[in-house]
């Protein structure tokens, strides 16, 4: 037993998965990893049952699915739905709008979350730190319906408090909610308002694991505030940042539906239409689950490629990937 554990500990740093050469090795591997394999059992069962088994249903992407007829009973139509999606005249516009919103989220909302976490971490008064943390995470719990109707209230033409203030500031009357030029800024603003505070939680958890002695040592060495942030705080959340970044690239085509749907109107639709709202109209309102599934599959393939790609790049630069 003891030797086994030692052997395992010794191999702990190896990056290459040992490949069992023959049956004896397979048995040895199982014996050696029996505890770990046992621990994983419920999780594997879960993924098999609830995540992979239902995926047989994905075949409706190649059928004209009618729930009443069942999956097997619905007509097989091959690649029809995929072709419809990619040859749709609106496709380039949908792709463009989706990517722009994703980029804004990646380059504005995401860094802001990190900055916010760092600033919170630098607060010295514990009571203040806790209070602000609690306050900024409150908006996360308001549904998009509520956030959008509050936005409508604040930016209402004529009497919205923010509308009045901004118009005095800029000297012109702008219809923020209808002007296509203001659609994306508002979406980002809502997203930042609603989710930044919540997003800091993961980073704060990572920061909580930083060894405080390092700071003390750095102070004694005469390191300034900025140097401490740069050399101790940031490196300690670097792997969390990278993992979140990799995972977010996989979601690049998922802008979310509800917020955009609620914020779009006849005058800003040219910039507001994204894949997720389009799928809602075609897939859900027009009852074509097959089409929605086909689009979902296409998006998933892009997502997988992006995740594996960014993960590979991260590894090349000697950073932690997600695998």
């Amino acid at each position: 037993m003891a030797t086994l554990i030692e052997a395992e500990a010794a191999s702990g740093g190896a990056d290459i998965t040992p490949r069992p050469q023959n049956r004896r090795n397979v048995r040895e591997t199982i014996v050696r990893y029996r505890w770990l394999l046992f621990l994983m059992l419920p999780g594997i069962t879960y993924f098999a049952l609830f995540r992979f088994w239902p995926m047989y249903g994905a075949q409706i992407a190649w059928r004209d699915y009618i729930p009443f007829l069942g999956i097997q009973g619905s007509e097989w139509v091959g690649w029809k739905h995929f072709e419809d999606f990619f040859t749709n005249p609106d496709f380039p516009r949908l792709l463009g709008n989706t990517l722009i919103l994703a980029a804004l989220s990646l380059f504005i909302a995401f860094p802001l979350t990190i900055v916010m976490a760092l600033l919170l971490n630098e607060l010295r008064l514990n009571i203040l730190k806790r209070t602000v943390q609690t306050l900024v995470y409150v908006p996360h719990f308001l549904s998009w319906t509520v956030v959008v109707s509050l936005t409508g209230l604040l930016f209402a033409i004529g009497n919205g408090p923010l509308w009045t203030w901004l118009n005095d500031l800029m000297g012109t009357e702008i219809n923020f909610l209808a002007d296509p030029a203001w659609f994306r800024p508002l979406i980002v603003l809502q997203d930042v308002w609603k989710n930044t505070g919540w997003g800091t939680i993961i980073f704060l958890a990572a920061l909580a694991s930083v060894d405080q002695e390092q700071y003390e040592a750095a102070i004694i060495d005469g390191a300034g505030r900025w140097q401490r942030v740069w050399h101790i705080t940031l490196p300690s959340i670097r792997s969390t940042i990278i993992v979140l970044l990799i995972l977010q690239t996989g979601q690049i085509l998922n802008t979310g539906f509800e917020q955009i749907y609620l914020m779009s109107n006849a005058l800003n639709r040219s910039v507001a239409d994204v894949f997720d709202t389009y799928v809602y109209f075609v897939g859900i309102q027009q009852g074509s689950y097959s089409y929605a599934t086909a689009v979902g599959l296409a998006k998933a393939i892009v997502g997988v490629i992006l995740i594996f790609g960014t993960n590979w790049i991260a590894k090349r630069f000697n950073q932690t990937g997600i695998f």
Partner: protein
Amino acid sequence: MTTRKRLRAPLAILTVTGLALTAACTSGGDDGDGDGGGDGGGDALSSLSIMAPYFAAVPPEEDDPIDLALSELTGVDLSVQWVPNTDYGERTNVVLAGDDIPDVMVMGKTPAFVQTAEAGGFWELTDYLNSGDYPNLVSENPEVQEATSVNGHVYGVYRSRDVIRHCIILRADWLANLGLEQPQTTDELFEVARAFTEDDPDGNGQDDTYGFINPAWPGSIGSGSPYDALELWNGAGNVWLEDGGELVPSFTTDEWMEALEYERDLVQNGYTNPDYATMDPATWNEPFLNGQGGIIIDVQSRAPQLVELFREQDPANAESYVALVGQPEGPHGTFAMPTAGYSNFLAIPRSSVETEEQLEQVLQVLNDMNSTEAQILLNNGIEGDNFTVEDDYAVYNEDRQDFTDQVSGAWAQLGTNVAGYNAYSTQPATPYDEELAQLRLDLQAEDLENAVFNPAAALASETYQSSGTQLDTLISDARIQFIAGQIDEAGVQDVIDRWHSQGGDQVIAELNELYSELG
């Protein structure tokens, strides 16, 4: 660090979750005896399950007195699966994919329903309903029943609604201040909108009012919006227009374009609220109450709602604020906008009601549920409990308000009233309310004579099923963009051309073929 602690806790948790999983797996076998399963085979039904949406805060529970009374009345054990109205459609799709489908489902004529019905998922009821075997299910309004059909095949007992609901609601005090008459034509309406904007109707010496209040409409074309009404009044037809035996879309007519110019002028002259493209319809009453705007084109039931809100604000003069006016005459004639006349229907799935005998039994139950006695249960509640009858009106017991709310917000959803509404109306609280109620009835009768129905209501074109939402949105967006001054008439024409090329031409061809088939 206590690395020597025993392992009991994690093991216990593991065991519990493991047990949960295995329990989950093994209990799968005995699931088949749900509501639907028991009805299998050709036996007569002893129980009947109905799936229906509810609007109330809380749905009725299994031991609800109405449930018991209805079960007794119909002779079957009635069980209702209540689903929140907001996500009813989502739930129906999932239920249809499973194998314990209720015996009766409230369904709308959505693309999903049409697909399912055409695949044989629901009983066709045309002959049964017309046979006269079920007297309470014979429609008093055959046009409405026809409109509920899919290309002439009726798949459900429709839930009847008032055919005329649209009207114009104006600030009566503003009309009086300016010495204006109630508008009877669209031109007069335009003039009132101008005066409400420019002539200081509230007499405060400030330019702080406008005429029309239009919210951002959630539906596209033909969805009962103020714009749809103005276009119909101008003679553009109701979504489709018969022209020399051919169906043409309303928005290809000159009358439609003319109405759009009227709407644009209202906006460009400032006679409409500036946030017409974005205003949340939930806040529609606010500018009217606050004295910012003075004209609303919407359903009549908004008028008593507004009167109630004015009562909170100014009880003494509450009755002087709201004027209710019927649909106006247009330059090309008098046309009135009707509703579809129904809101969804009770359809009978073939997988739960398998034989014709069972179907006849279900129809008999639905027939019984539309008797006067049952209508009173569904719409008023239980006499002597939550209401009493005075002068043929229902007077509700305030202590039982929760129950009354459940009746009107849930049980009433099972009522079809196709052969007429025979339950009691609510007793008007004041003479003014009674007057208003009478006015509404008079206006309904008057406008019904001029109602313009959608000639394509019963027709289900395949192309429209698969891309209608997008096509319609093209047009309703172009409408708002034109009104906002972002595109001109040529721009609207471009969008209409796109509508034609992206599937509209097929829709026209398919509908006309169906139209000529049905004669």
